[in-house]
């Protein structure tokens, strides 16, 4: 347990909270880069996923693409981009975007597909046009699963961003790599604890969001079921 105490002492050490390379700066970097990546990846993947789910067209392609992307080893992709674009932020950003796309894409089409086809049929028979069917029926009803996809993508980004400190000078992962280099276990464990806490807090926030976006009329019947079985993200943990 000494190891943990050392790590906590490292985290609480005021000198680690100051200036360039301090905990607040690293945490901030980790957060904003993750947020930017998520926005870029979502802007690409969510519309495509919703379209695939709505039309049913290109489903095979979407499944194949997200499957193939997922089999990619994250460290390999990061290294390759680092070699192409040089050490620094330019390399991890495209790599992280690529790796965040599969869960977002899958969440979006699975969310839309999960809706009872009879409800969509009724909406069409009433005279909703395709845009209205997507906007007023499919997206609200599929939202819990879509948010589930965003949740796993976010966890994936946070995890990969930690690893990305290997090729770029940013984020909480820096503490781990600098600790590995100097064999300072307190620092690497301290950094790991910060990363774990960050991931769990974000995951918890998403779990809450996921529950809140269940439409009220659906919650009336499905709430208990969702509670015992939260739509579990399958974040790759790279």
């Amino acid at each position: 347990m000494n190891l943990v105490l050392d790590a906590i002492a490292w985290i609480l050490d005021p000198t680690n909270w100051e200036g360039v390379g301090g905990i607040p700066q690293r945490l901030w970097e980790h957060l904003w880069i993750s947020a930017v990546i998520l926005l870029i990846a979502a802007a690409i993947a969510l519309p495509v996923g919703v379209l695939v789910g709505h039309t049913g067209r290109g489903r095979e392609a979407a499944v194949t693409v997200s499957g193939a992307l997922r089999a990619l080893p994250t460290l390999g992709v990061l290294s390759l981009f680092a070699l192409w674009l040089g050490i620094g932020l330019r390399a991890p950003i495209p790599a992280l975007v690529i790796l965040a796309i599969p869960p977002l894409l899958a969440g979006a089409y699975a969310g839309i597909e999960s809706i009872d086809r009879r409800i969509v049929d009724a909406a069409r028979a009433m005279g909703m046009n395709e845009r209205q069917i997507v906007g007023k029926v499919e997206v609200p009803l599929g939202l819990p699963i879509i948010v589930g996809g965003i949740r796993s993508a976010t966890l994936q980004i946070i995890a990969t961003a930690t690893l990305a400190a290997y090729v770029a000078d940013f984020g909480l992962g820096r503490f781990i790599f600098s600790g590995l280099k100097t064999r300072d276990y307190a620092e690497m464990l301290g950094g790991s604890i910060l990363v774990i806490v960050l991931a769990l807090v974000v995951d918890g926030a998403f779990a809450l969001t996921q529950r809140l976006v269940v439409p009220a009329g659906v919650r009336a019947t499905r709430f208990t079921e969702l509670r015992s079985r939260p739509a579990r993200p399958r974040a790759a943990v790279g």
Partner: protein
Amino acid sequence: MIEFRGVTKQFPDGTVAVEGVDIVIPPHKTTVLVGSSGSGKTTLLRMINRMVDPTAGQVLIDGTDVATVEPVALRRGIGYVMQNSGLLPHRKVVDNVATVPLLRGTSKREARAHALELLDTVGLDRSLAEKYPAQLSGGQQQRVGVARGLAVDPNILLMDEPFGAVDPIVRAELQQELLRLQEELGKTVVFVTHDIDEAFLLGDQVVIMQQGGRISQAASPVEILANPADDFVADFVGARRGKRALHVTEVDGQRLVVDADGRPAGVLAS
């Protein structure tokens, strides 16, 4: 008036759902399409609001070929009630009923006020207005479905096995309710069912369909029972099995009507 002229529907996989159908559906009456599954009755119904487009022939509403009308606009002018109600689970009852008027640009206040009146029309308590569909019984959901179908006061009301998923007692109740409504409103109702008794009860005109989407007979219930067009129809309506061959027998001073198997069908009114 709705008219089918030489209508055929072949799906891309080759199945012929409807073949060479010619029929006139008179206005302000109830026409029931009846047949077993695979007889193309639902396909026929869905061609009226262009949920399905025919591969040959024409469907005309008051002389206008529906193929020339934009489908979304067409559907907003035709009421549609389906099995399992098809209500939007994430919207309250009142908002479900108000859906189409809102799509057509009616103000929210007006649409909701009208929706409440429609709940009265279909015999639902207004206290249900703020509930979600999942909180209603199956019969109540179906009534909401009917109210929604009536929301834009359409001339035509399409009903696709609307009472197929409720228990027999509730179904009988809903059937009576529909008869009452129809007397009041006089819509052109096209109703799909696989239950011949339901067809005879509700239909002014009954259209009997057989496998492959052909019409065997289209006539009033009385006419069909009196003169079944062929053996298929006779079998289908049960005339030959003796189910419809009723006779009177006397039990304890009451005159009972029984079928050929001796099962009681009712008491003869004196």
